């Protein structure tokens, strides 16, 4: 399911910088609304996919309910803005905090009970469901009607005149998430997460506080998801329980990472580019609802069956032998 965290050759700085340069230049080369939107969605999924990847890929704690942290972020920032009059930019840290708190709760409760593997995946699903039902039923979130954020395009309002404003913001977030993943590969925290992923008992025997590290990583992941939720709310200006707490988002976060390559730095980006492409292409060429996800579901099955490390294996095979020293 995951890559050789340290055994594979690290991504050279040149590649990081080239990709960043390409991304920065992209909206100028393709300034149409359609293409910029494609870019935004690809980077958005790369960002929340990376959020999932950090706990699901690097630390091996596969979750089916990450949407809980995402939705909580989306609602937190929207409620702050619409019900309490905060400036929308406060929504980002607010959403991060909300996501972190919910993730912390889920982590403490689940990991202390010793849940792992499939049971952990299922309980996170249930937590997501609980939040969906609650947000569907209480007034402050607008219940089933959701929340509409009035369009007032200005930077101060966390809405941009030009769509490219959103693009550069999500690029910043996505780039930061890549940097975070890189840091994980080289740090003690990341090594401990890899150890926990591979073998918890051995990790304990070497002095790693497994419970504490798992909680930390899920909190980090939750904070990132929360921010993704805030961005989503500001970009689409409408959220409701099904959109931001529905299972679909959890699945998408999981898919981009697993298909691209869980536990790798660029896996989520590869998966996100693929998802956004398939989504846009099917939407443009056919009117068939659900086709893109059919392709995605099929891809997931094929990848798990034949390329369990994800598409990134295709890039690796010609690249290097595993296990180079840095």
């Amino acid at each position: 399911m995951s890559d050789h965290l340290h055994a594979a050759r690290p991504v050279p700085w040149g590649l990081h910088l080239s990709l960043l340069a390409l991304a920065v230049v992209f909206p100028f080369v393709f300034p149409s609304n359609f293409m910029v939107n494609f870019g935004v969605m690809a980077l958005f999924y790369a960002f929340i996919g990376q959020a999932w990847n950090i706990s699901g890929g690097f630390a091996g704690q596969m979750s089916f309910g990450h949407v809980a942290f995402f939705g909580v972020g989306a609602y937190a920032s929207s409620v702050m803005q619409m019900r309490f009059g905060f400036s929308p930019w406060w929504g980002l840290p607010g959403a991060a905090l909300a996501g972190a708190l919910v993730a912390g709760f889920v982590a403490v409760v689940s990991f202390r009970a010793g849940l792992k593997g499939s049971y952990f995946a299922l309980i996170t699903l249930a937590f997501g469901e609980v939040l969906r039902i609650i947000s569907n039923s209480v007034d402050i979130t607008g219940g089933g009607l959701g929340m509409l954020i009035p369009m007032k395009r200005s930077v101060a309002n966390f809405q941009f005149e030009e769509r490219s404003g959103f693009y550069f913001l999500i690029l910043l977030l996505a780039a930061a998430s890549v940097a975070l993943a890189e840091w994980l590969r080289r740090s003690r925290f990341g090594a401990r997460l890899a150890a926990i992923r591979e073998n918890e008992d051995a990790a304990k025997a070497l002095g790693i506080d497994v419970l504490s590290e798992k909680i930390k990583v899920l909190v980090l992941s939750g904070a990132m998801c929360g921010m993704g939720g805030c961005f989503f709310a500001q970009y689409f200006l409408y959220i409701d329980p099904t959109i931001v707490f529905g299972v679909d988002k959890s699945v998408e976060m999981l898919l981009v990472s697993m298909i691209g390559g869980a536990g790798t730095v660029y896996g989520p980006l590869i998966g996100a580019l693929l998802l956004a492409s398939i989504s846009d292409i099917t939407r443009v060429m056919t009117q068939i609802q659900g086709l893109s996800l059919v392709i995605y579901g099929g891809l997931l099955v094929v990848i798990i069956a034949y390329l369990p490390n994800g598409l990134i294996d295709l890039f690796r095979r010609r690249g290097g032998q595993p296990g180079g020293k840095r």
Partner: protein
Amino acid sequence: MDLSILTAAAINGLLLGGIYTLVACGLTLIYGVLHIINFAHGSLLMVAMFGVYYLLTVFKIDPYVSLLIMVPAMFVLGYALYKGLIGRFSSGKDENILLITLGLSILLENIALMFFKGDSRTITVAYSDTMIELGPTLVPLPKLISFAVAMVLCLALGWLIQRTDTGRAIRAVAKERMGARLVGLDVDKVYAISFGLGLATLGAAACLLMPIFYVSPTIGHVFVLVAFTVVVLGGMGSFLGAVLGGLIVGLTESFGGLFLGESLGQIGISLIFILILLLRPSGLFGAKA
């Protein structure tokens, strides 16, 4: 609160719970024997329900009569699915199989979305509106029939597992795969049969649910969580647990809706699921992991 309202809710809960039991029986069989958490259980039920829908609307076959068609058809589908897909990966990592069944459920749900759009469909039969008086409440006849048939089928499944040679083989493989292989049982075939049986229960459940429920491509989500909750509550691999679990979950849903309202009422099932996993993961009757 009026006793008659409570009783009515209880009766309705039990009736629906009986069908949940049937759905869960299949899931617990699959888990008990193959040790697979079949995430596609809900979507497969959805597929079967569409089957029943079309059998009625196109071929005019009464849903209860469809049992004769759907049960064997779903068995064959299950057998084929195992041989063609699941079987290859059932010995791999636990999580891989979960992901494959997740992928399968995504596939099924979205293929259904492509063909049937997002609308929900219901069916009506001649006796849909016939009401039977049961204590303080009026119950639609189909609901009663469905409950009765569900219970009979659960018993039949139980009998099959306990008394027939196939059932014995299934139990042997479930308990001790290597030993079963050593005494000459074709373990792979047992797996395929068990998976087929698991899906056959879905075929039956579909026939029983269509007259009293609705079908839409996304209904799989709802049923998956319900089925998991029943199985986890009852204990993975335990039939008695599935029966009791189904009834309890049905009651919870009913009372949840009564006390908390339509929207918030659904929370009961998820909460049960969470609490059981945290406090007593082996469920009521399951083996301690």
